[in-house]
């Protein structure tokens, strides 16, 4: 059992304010809501790429951020993997070197290179540079790179928003396989109800910087979540 506790306040200079509290656990948690509602900000806060004005983020018994106690674990020590919306593959490195980047630094146990390459069908791409990859190929490489860094928690920022419908089905299928196989607690930002229905065990809705757990209506049949109370 993994449990993520999130409670943060953050005010931007343009007046937008995030003030959200929620809990998530094993399985896939979807963060849904209109763009600008704070979903991506939440991922950045969890990954340690942003600091809240006030708040606390904990993954099981590890406190990642706690402003009152002046705790802030830097991103490279969080073991939180992130797949960015536009992938952010390193353009000067081959696919192989991209995949090895995190693996080399975190030396995870049991999550082997060859297995991930096979699982995500990356074998043909290893020698290529990201610049020559299609959207779907970049997507798979970015997921593989995050997986190989041995994360305790996986963050996906609109993972399929940039690929066309035909490819989307295949990529969502791959995501499902990976998440189930690695039993990785996953937070997944989306604004597409169908994607959410397919992947998510529970849903947290964002509206103008506030979080709210939704009743189980949209969750998949494999759901094993108890509804976390949001606010």
């Amino acid at each position: 059992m993994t449990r993520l506790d999130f409670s943060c306040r953050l005010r931007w200079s343009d007046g937008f304010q995030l003030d959200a509290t929620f809990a998530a656990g094993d399985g896939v948690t979807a963060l849904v809501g209109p763009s600008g509602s704070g979903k991506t900000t939440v991922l950045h806060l969890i990954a340690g790429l942003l600091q809240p004005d006030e708040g606390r983020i904990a993954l099981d018994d590890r406190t990642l951020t706690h402003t009152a106690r002046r705790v802030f674990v830097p991103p490279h020590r969080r073991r939180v993997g992130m797949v960015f919306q536009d992938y952010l593959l390193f353009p000067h490195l081959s696919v192989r070197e991209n995949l090895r980047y995190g693996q080399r630094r975190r030396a995870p146990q049991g999550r082997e290179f060859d297995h991930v390459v096979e699982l995500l069908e990356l074998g043909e791409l290893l020698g290529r540079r990201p610049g020559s990859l299609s959207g779907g190929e970049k997507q798979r490489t970015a997921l593989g790179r995050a997986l190989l860094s041995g994360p305790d928690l996986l963050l996906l920022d609109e993972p399929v928003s940039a690929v066309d419908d035909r490819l989307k089905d295949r990529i969502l299928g791959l995501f499902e396989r990976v998440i189930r196989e690695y039993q990785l607690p996953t937070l997944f930002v989306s604004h597409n109800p169908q994607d959410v229905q397919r992947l998510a065990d529970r849903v947290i809705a964002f509206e103008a910087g506030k979080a709210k757990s939704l009743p189980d209506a949209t969750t998949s049949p494999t759901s094993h979540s108890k509804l976390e109370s949001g606010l």
Partner: protein
Amino acid sequence: MQHWFLTPDEWRAIALSLQAAVFAVAITLPLGVVVGRLLARGKFLGKSLIETAINLPLVLPPVVTGYLLLVVLGRQGWLGRPLNDWLGVRFVFDFRGVVLASAVAAFPLMVRAIRLAFAGVDRRLEQAARTLGAGPVDAFFTVSLPLAWRGVLAGCVLAFARSLGEFGATIVIAGNIPNETQTIPLYIYGLLESPGGLQQAWRVATVSILLAAAALTVSEYLERTRGE
């Protein structure tokens, strides 16, 4: 045909210039990378003040730059005196003075190119590296610097060329001592002061033009092929 070939004196002036330029670039490069990156990414108090200070040698009369260096690092200067007394390091009438003057004159050009290079690298790539377990220094050396290297190199080449041309600050702090502080511009200046010098100066002047043109070509090429 002796007329066409460089004399030993001329060779010495050219060699001295190249040496001074190499040293000047080598010494300023680490600082140039740090400052260039800071200016490209950082938001901090006094940023525009630092920018002005760095760019000042671009527009200041070089003689004034030399004067300021003399005030600070001269034998009676507030930094020059302890350096001389305790470490025996002196800049006045010394090859070190040539390197120093070249470095100060070339620094703004170097920083400008390096800053542009880092500004052209998506900073989120470093964030991605951080989530993959790389510390800030690690992410800088494995992601940002390799992506900015062309601009960094272009900055070095420009700084090198500027160093070769340094005259005003050099003559103030290092003087014009053949074989010790007499670089190409100072050598030509010396020739022009003696009778018949105008006819003799053309060989070194040609070398100077060729070096400058080569440096410009290389830096232009590096800038043009950036991101390829």
